[in-house]
């Protein structure tokens, strides 16, 4: 087994254009001993897996495309089976600024929380690096959605500024919990935070930068954002009314 106790989970679907840059960014913030990387290729039809392997990054390929949630959970399962103490998930399309990875890692090591969420809305202090590109806060609909989810989560006593962040660090216990069939694999988002919160996992946010991905815009047009909102709203409400899994 590798010497590292931390794994970076990188779900990727058709990210041939970004994967090398993301991996290069990751190697710039860390030495190899600090983190193990794992790309989870979610049935990509492009060169994502080959490029990751050529770059020397372990890559696990799902034989069919089943979506972000499935890829993510595969990472949790891998982390649990291989004895990692900490897992950090981030996007491979360059949306998440890797320079905040050490801080998430530090918070996990200090055990300040079971789940450390990178928030694009928390204010930065002078110790933060300068942003590399214009900061992204989402489309109007997305921002309205985030506000709505904030309010709903607060009803259950969970105060977070960025409930839909995908830049998240997990302690092993949280990883084990999400590796079971409890995990909502269709649209894991704000509902996962509520699920974790209601089952006694402590959640903490730290400020990060997120950037827009110019190519992303195209698939989020049309009815998709509305459909997403309705599904996610339902998922959050159900996460709120289900009985606790851990008693």
């Amino acid at each position, binding site marked *: 087994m590798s010497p590292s106790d931390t794994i970076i989970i990188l779900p990727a679907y058709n990210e041939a254009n970004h994967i090398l840059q993301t991996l290069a960014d990751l190697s710039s913030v860390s030495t190899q001993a600090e983190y193990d990387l794992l790309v989870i290729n979610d049935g990509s039809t492009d060169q994502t897996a080959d490029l990751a392997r050529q770059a020397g990054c372990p890559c696990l*390929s799902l*034989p*069919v495309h089943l979506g972000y949630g*499935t890829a993510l959970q595969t990472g949790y399962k891998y982390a649990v089976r291989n004895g990692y103490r900490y897992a950090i998930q981030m996007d491979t399309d360059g949306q998440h600024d890797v320079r905040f990875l050490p801080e998430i890692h530090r918070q996990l090591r200090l055990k300040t929380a079971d789940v450390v969420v990178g928030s694009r809305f928390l204010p930065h202090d002078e110790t933060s690096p300068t942003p590399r590109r214009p900061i992204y806060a989402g489309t109007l609909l997305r921002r309205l959605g985030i506000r709505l989810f904030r309010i709903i989560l607060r009803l259950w006593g969970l105060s977070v500024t960025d409930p839909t962040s995908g830049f998240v660090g997990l302690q092993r216990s949280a990883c084990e919990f999400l590796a079971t069939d409890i995990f909502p694999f269709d649209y894991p988002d704000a509902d996962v935070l509520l699920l974790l919160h209601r089952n006694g996992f402590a959640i903490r946010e730290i400020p990060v930068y997120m950037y827009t991905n110019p190519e992303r815009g195209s698939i989020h047009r049309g009815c998709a954002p509305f459909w997403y909102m309705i599904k996610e709203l339902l998922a959050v409400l159900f996460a709120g009314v289900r009985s606790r899994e851990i008693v």
Partner: protein
Amino acid sequence: MPLTQKIFAVIFSVLFLYAIFEMVRKRRLLEQYSVIWLALGTIMLVLGLWYDALLFVTRLIGAGFTSSTLFFFGITICLLLNLQASFELSRNATHIKNLTQEVALLKHELEEKQKEMNQ
């Protein structure tokens, strides 16, 4: 009940039952899922042949017309079957997800082992 109506009802039920039977025989439909459809076809056949039974049920539920009874039960059964199909679909989606993940994890493990052996 007019004779033509009766003949139509019986022919339709028999064809329906035959279609289900053929699907099971050709393995297009699993036996466990055929039970409900065979039962439904049999009920249709019985009601077609035995009009008094339909009249009895109509009186029992307080419906004004026999056609209301048929629509009510027809639609209710379709709803329940659809719900059951959605339930199966949800369960299968979870199974497919777990199996896909398992394939990916095992394949990766195998590749790692092979790499170790080659070194």
